[in-house]
């Protein structure tokens, strides 16, 4: 039960932060990426603000256990593989195209009209298709 409540609370903070920060405004997100147009630096402040508590939280994990039990994530992998790069290229293209990424797409579901719902539905379909596409990719690479 504690895990559920903490997850709900974390999600609420995340959603509220996305809403207040302006990151559900697609024009501000595209403005950050549009460096050859009218550049909008807001996203840098959002990222900076988010990194502070997170960096502190990672520090606090040392020598402790999660409050609701279990264990902390293992240290990050260090290898940069094809999946990481190819997936990030596809994600970045879609992010630039509509100005929405998964977090803000969820946070704005209630106030982003049919457009937000259509984007979310397409994103969900993409997430469902990804494991299969990923296996094809691996096979193609193995056969190459």
């Amino acid at each position, binding site marked *: 039960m504690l895990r559920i409540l903490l997850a709900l609370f974390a999600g609420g903070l995340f959603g509220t932060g996305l809403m207040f920060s302006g990151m559900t405004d697609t024009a501000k997100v595209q403005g950050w990426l549009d460096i050859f147009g009218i550049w909008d630096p807001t996203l840098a402040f959002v990222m900076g603000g988010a990194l502070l508590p997170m960096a502190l939280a990672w520090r606090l994990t040392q020598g402790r256990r999660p409050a609701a039990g279990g264990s902390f994530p293992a240290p990050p992998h260090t290898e940069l593989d094809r999946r990481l790069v190819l997936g990030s290229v596809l994600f970045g293209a879609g992010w630039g195209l509509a100005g929405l990424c998964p977090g803000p797409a969820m946070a704005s579901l209630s106030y*982003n009209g049919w457009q937000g719902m259509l984007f979310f539905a397409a994103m969900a379909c993409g997430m469902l298709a990804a494991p299969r596409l990923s296996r094809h990719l691996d096979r193609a690479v193995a056969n190459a």
Partner: protein
Amino acid sequence: MEADWIWGLGGGLLIGLGGAVFLLGNGRIMGASGILGGLLDGSGRSNAAERIAFIGGVVLVPFLIALSTGHAPDTRVTSNAAVLIGAGLLVGIGTRIANGCTSGHGVCGISRLSLRGIAATAVFMLAGILTLAVLRQILGVI
């Protein structure tokens, strides 16, 4: 607006606090695409309840804020259905293949100085910058 950066910084702090609660409380990395994607494709079946609770908080709290204040932020989202579908598919496929998005690789990865998080963030930002440069500045279609 001049105050945009203050809202950005304040909202960013809340985002980071959310990630800190999820990490220190549940021992989990707050990645929006991983939490949602794992629920959809069944790979996160073992902890589906906390995924649903997290997503519930993400969706419902902004809804309740908008409802109680009578004001929702302007999203200025495109009404081009083809762009929305194409972008949604790319974001869904890309984040799952790369195993993370702006929250997981960006916020949570960079803050622990993960090489993969830093590299993924650099790549998806560059891809986004290139998309805007070509489709908005050169072709003028978005």
